[in-house]
Each structure stands twice: as C-alpha cells, then as structure tokens.
C-alpha cells in the first residue's frame, strides 16, 4: 500500500527543521528512519500534510560520554546503539535492548529519537530509557528543555512533546558495572513484545503493561527495602493496566510481568 500524498522538506540543519516545525505545527510530521511513521502512513492510518525529513542531520547522530551521563543524538540508529563500544561499557542495557528491536533491516533505519517520539507502549527502547532514568532533550524555535523520561509519556502514542518540538537528544546515566537484563517475551523473534522487562541498577521498566511504558515501582521499593527477588517480582504488575489482545489476556500479561521481572532481576543480580 502507499501513503496519501504529502509535501516534503529535507532541512539541512536542526534550526531549519525547528523553523519548519514552528511554522507547520500539527500539520507536519518528522521523519527520521521512518520505521514507525511510514508503516502507519502506508496503511493510511496517518496522513500528514508535510513530512520533515531529519534523516540527514549528521549533528543528531552521536554517542558520547558527558560527565555521569551518556548523550545520544536522537538520530542514532538502533544498529549504531547495538554496535556502540561506548554503550557496551557505559550502558550495556541499551545495545542489548536495541538488538531486540524489529529485525536487522529495521535496525538499519530506525532511530532512538523516533522510537521515543512514537510513544508506542509496546516498544522496547522507551521502557529501557525509563528503567535507566534517562532524560529526553526537546528543542524548538522557542528554546530547549530537558524532560525526565518519567514525566515524558502521557498515553498511548502521546507525550509532553509539543508539535513544534523535536527530540534532539537522549541522556542516560552511565550504569557501568551495575546489574542489568532485558527479558522480552514474543511470539516470534521480530514481533512486538507481548511483555518485556528491562532491569538496570535495581530499577525496572515494563513494556506493554499499560498505555505508556511503566516502572514497576512496587518492585523497586520492595527491593530497596531488602525484599527477595521472588517477593519483589511478585509485585511487578501492581499499578499496571495491561491491554488484552489475541496474544494475551490481561491476566496473562500480569503473570508474564511478574515472571519476567523475576528472571530479569535474577540475571541482573548475576545469580
């Protein structure tokens, strides 16, 4: 299938992209790798009037250590996360999660900024960044702001990002040797997660357990108070609101969240 016709701009600089966003607002959509956007447009579930292609903005493509954090340009592709030596030592969770996104072709195109902006609760990277306590850097013609990922998502496919804002960077703390694990439960290798659990440094991010990526706060609190992995994991589905579909009932998702959390915590603890 093919998208509805649209106008196309490929700005040469971030500022030019921001100017276009300021001008067109909700009528415009940003195209990075296109692997969230184009499928939606091809099925005609979305039909933006203007597509702003930021795929060539080289200054959005970087991974570098900045103090206690690693700064990742929004245009960094999943493949680049996967292969990054910096991340392998500083934030090993991220390459591992990136490796589970889609398939190699998708990873050659999709970007971390695009994945976060799309705000799909079944997506891998948002929950990983959530577990990392990362920060989303938003820029518009009006200026720049940093939003903690914990306050970024507002619902299914929605976030606090304003129509004129662009995600330019994702910042995550250097977790180094802290225990981590990613447990992703799928029907098929390249399916979206039925449920997935990202664990790093005692924090737990849940995929597909509600309208947004979630933290298993009760589990984290129990762990902090010295509870066993078993007991803490049993709380992983508290305050979640999982969807029901052909792959899973709500109850089954709750069970998987508990089970995968137990497994991820066990792996992260190196037990």
């Amino acid at each position, binding site marked *: 299938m093919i*998208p509805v016709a649209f106008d196309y701009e490929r700005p040469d600089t971030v500022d030019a992209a921001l100017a276009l966003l300021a001008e067109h607002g909700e009528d415009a959509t940003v195209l990075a790798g296109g692997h969230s956007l184009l499928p939606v447009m091809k099925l005609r579930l979305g039909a933006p009037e203007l597509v702003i292609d930021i795929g060539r903005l080289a200054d959005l493509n970087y991974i570098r250590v900045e103090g206690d954090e690693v700064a990742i340009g929004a245009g960094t592709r999943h*493949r680049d996360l996967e292969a990054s030596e910096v991340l392998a030592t500083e934030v090993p969770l991220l390459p591992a999660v990136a490796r589970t996104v889609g398939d190699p072709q998708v990873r050659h195109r999709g970007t971390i900024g695009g994945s976060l902006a799309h705000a799909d609760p079944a997506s891998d990277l948002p929950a990983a960044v959530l577990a990392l306590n990362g920060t989303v850097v938003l820029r518009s013609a009006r200026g720049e702001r940093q939003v903690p990922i914990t306050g970024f998502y507002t619902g299914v496919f929605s976030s606090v990002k304003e129509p004129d804002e662009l995600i330019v960077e994702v910042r995550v703390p250097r977790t180094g040797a802290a225990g981590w694990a990613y447990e992703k439960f799928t029907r098929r290798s390249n399916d979206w997660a039925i449920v997935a659990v990202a664990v790093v440094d005692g924090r737990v991010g849940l995929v597909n357990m509600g309208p947004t990526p979630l933290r298993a706060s009760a589990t984290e609190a129990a762990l902090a108070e010295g509870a066993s992995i078993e007991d803490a994991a049993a709380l992983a589905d508290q305050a979640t609101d999982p969807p029901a579909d052909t792959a899973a009932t709500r109850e089954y998702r709750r069970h998987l969240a508990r089970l995968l959390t137990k497994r991820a915590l066990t792996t992260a603890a190196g037990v």
Partner: protein
Amino acid sequence: MSGNTVKVDITVNGEQTSADVEPRLLLAHYLRENVGLKATNIGCDTTSCGACTVLVDGESVKSCTVLAVQTDQRSVTTLEGLSPEGGELHPMAKAFREEHGLQCGFCTPGMVMAAVSLIEENPNPTERDVREGLEGNLCRCTGYHNIVRAVLAAAGQDPDAEQKREAESDASRTAPGFSTGGAGA
C-alpha cells in the same frame, strides 16, 4: 492538497539514475517502475516480509518502507547488481543455488540481499546467528532449512558441521542426523 515533486539522484547498482518523483514514492516502486529493475518484490504492507530488501550504502533495508527521496544522493544495490551480466554468480547467489535455497523465488531477491548484509556484519555466523539475522525475511516454500545452509556456505562454513553443532548445543538432542541426502531405505 499536496502534490509537489522532488528531484532525486540515486546511484543504483553503480549507475546514476534520476527522476522527478512524488515524495510518497516508495523506493521499491522507484526501483521497479522508474528504473525498471523488477527483481525487488513487494510482499507485504507492514515491513514484515523483507521481499523488498535492498542495500542502501551497503546495509540491508526494506525498500517498501523507505521513500525514494530518502535515498537521494545515496547508493542502492539490488539483486541485479550482485552478479555481473553473463558472468559468474555472486557467491551468495551461487550458494543459494547449490543448497537449493529457493523455490518459487519471490522472497529470494530480498533474502539474498539480507544475507549479503548479514555476513558483511558478521563474517563468521553460527546457525543461530543466521536464523536470527534473517528474522526480517519470510519464505513460505523452503522452511528456511536450505536458506540457512546457503548463508552458512557462503560465509565459508560447512553447513553440515554448523547444523550439527547447533543441534548438539541442546541437551534434548541425542542423535542429530541432518539430511543432505542421507541413507536410503
């Protein structure tokens, strides 16, 4: 109402191509309709099947989920660009033939291109690596058995040995006997 066109210059299989295209034109259609290279097939709407896989700057992508304009000034390689006309088959193509890694042929161009990209990134893949590396390419005919063998062979590995190793890596396997002909009754 939209409808502007954009000029693109795309190197396809080493040759310059150029056209004024609608921004919505998919790379797959650009290759098939504008350039006339029909090996690249379209098998789904959801970036699932990989039949349309081509290389952009040497990396596998699904050309049904890339706009032609996104590859402006880039280099695209399709199946037609792998083996010189009238010459030897590309090693990956040759391996697909020798291992019978294709039947109806519809997934084949994309499968071969995905495989070329796979061993470019991982020159010494295990059977598991190959299976996971091809997760984005669907085939209804072969059950993948011979495709996996072909990719292993193209990577310079012995498919029999590699399948046996994968088999023995699991405790439940007691008597692996992967047929490449085997003993008749």
